[in-house]
């Protein structure tokens, strides 16, 4: 089947199968920043924004994105400039192996749109669905706090 959607600001048409996940369709279209890890909505490494909400793309069908507005980690930068969350993650040593990071970046960027001034507790709560195995939660939480203080975290 064919779907039409906006991907990182451009309208595209994708040929997909009924049972294909949104994650598979995204990666098949060369947007490989979105990672395949648990495929069961546990880890958040495949997080994308669909219609403004951060979601796990492994447990959505690609078909469900038909007509939607999709932003992947590749669409988080603006005008060649890193998003404050990306900047803070890179500067703060919040990145180790990096495999969970695109999902964390998307999750944090989406959350800051809703709550531009989160507490540490808020961020911890939001990151419950983002698993990191290099045990790097502290640094990412600090990075999101720093990004929120930059005052330009809105997308």
């Amino acid at each position, binding site marked *: 089947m064919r779907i039409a959607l906006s991907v990182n600001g451009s309208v595209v048409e994708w040929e997909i199968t009924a049972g294909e996940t949104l994650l598979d369709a995204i990666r098949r279209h060369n947007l490989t920043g979105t990672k395949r890890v648990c495929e069961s909505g546990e880890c*958040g490494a495949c997080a994308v924004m669909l219609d403004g909400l951060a979601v796990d793309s492994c447990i959505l*069908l690609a078909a469900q994105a038909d007509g939607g507005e999709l932003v992947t980690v590749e669409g988080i930068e603006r005008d060649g400039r890193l998003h404050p969350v990306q900047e803070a993650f890179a500067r703060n040593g919040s990145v180790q192996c990096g495999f969970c990071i695109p999902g964390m970046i998307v999750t944090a960027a989406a959350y800051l749109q809703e709550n531009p001034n989160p507490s540490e507790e808020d961020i911890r709560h939001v990151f419950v669905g983002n698993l990191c195995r290099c045990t790097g939660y502290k640094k990412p939480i600090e990075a999101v706090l720093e990004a929120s203080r930059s005052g330009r975290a809105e997308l």
Partner: protein
Amino acid sequence: MWKLKEYIRPDSVTEAVAIKQHHGPRAAYLSGGSDLMVCRPEDIETVIDIRHIGLGYVRDEDDALVIGGAALLRDAEARARHVAGGMLTAAFRDTAPWLIRNVATVAGNIANASPAADSVPALIALDARIVVSGTSEQMPVHDVFAGPHQTNLGNALIEQIRVPSSSHSVRAKFFKLARSASDIALVNLAVSCDIQDGVFHRVRISLGAVAPIPVRAVLTESLLEGQAVSRDLLWEAGETVKKEITPISDWRASAQYRSRMSGVLLRRALESFTTPEERNLNA
């Protein structure tokens, strides 16, 4: 691998139900997919996406907080803060991590009929009812369940969940006991009641993950009903509730632990409604 043949996106409740009736057990309603897309049942060939049939609302009506059958947990969570001192919001928050609450629905948490569904005990304790598509009838949430992952809904879908205004001002508490913030509950429990002059009224106790379906602890409710708050009574309630559940042992917890913690959580919930002085008064 999921050999799904067909994805259908109806525009209305009537159309969605008609498609489901046509396909029968080989079709499933799909909303956030946080259960269906994880289980991927082999016998399902068709999914009916109900995200676009006008049920995404959460609104206050005169007699109830009304949660549409496709309303996201995140929206219900935000709009239920005034209900039962925030107990319902707490239960919705504990149901799943934020990324999942952005797609998963309250109705899905009910219709999935997991014995451990976190929002269900909270809804039961607040006398919530569902409106079944194609009927004007309302069904208590507790009556939806036929067994683990089995409902009495047939081909119908949950059009609304109605949390009556009469329950909005009760004292209430929700607890989820789990090994981690994103794990399935070992035990979950919701309690609501009124306390007037130190006496329990309108007590509702519901527990999850301790029986094949969510439990309403009616014996314990009647034990408390009309009785004065006391330490002994709370202790007895914590013991009685264990007789109303049939937990199993699995890799998360033993039956014995679940049983014991059910009593502990109930006592803690009841204690939270009263001061130590009140409890000691009748000791």
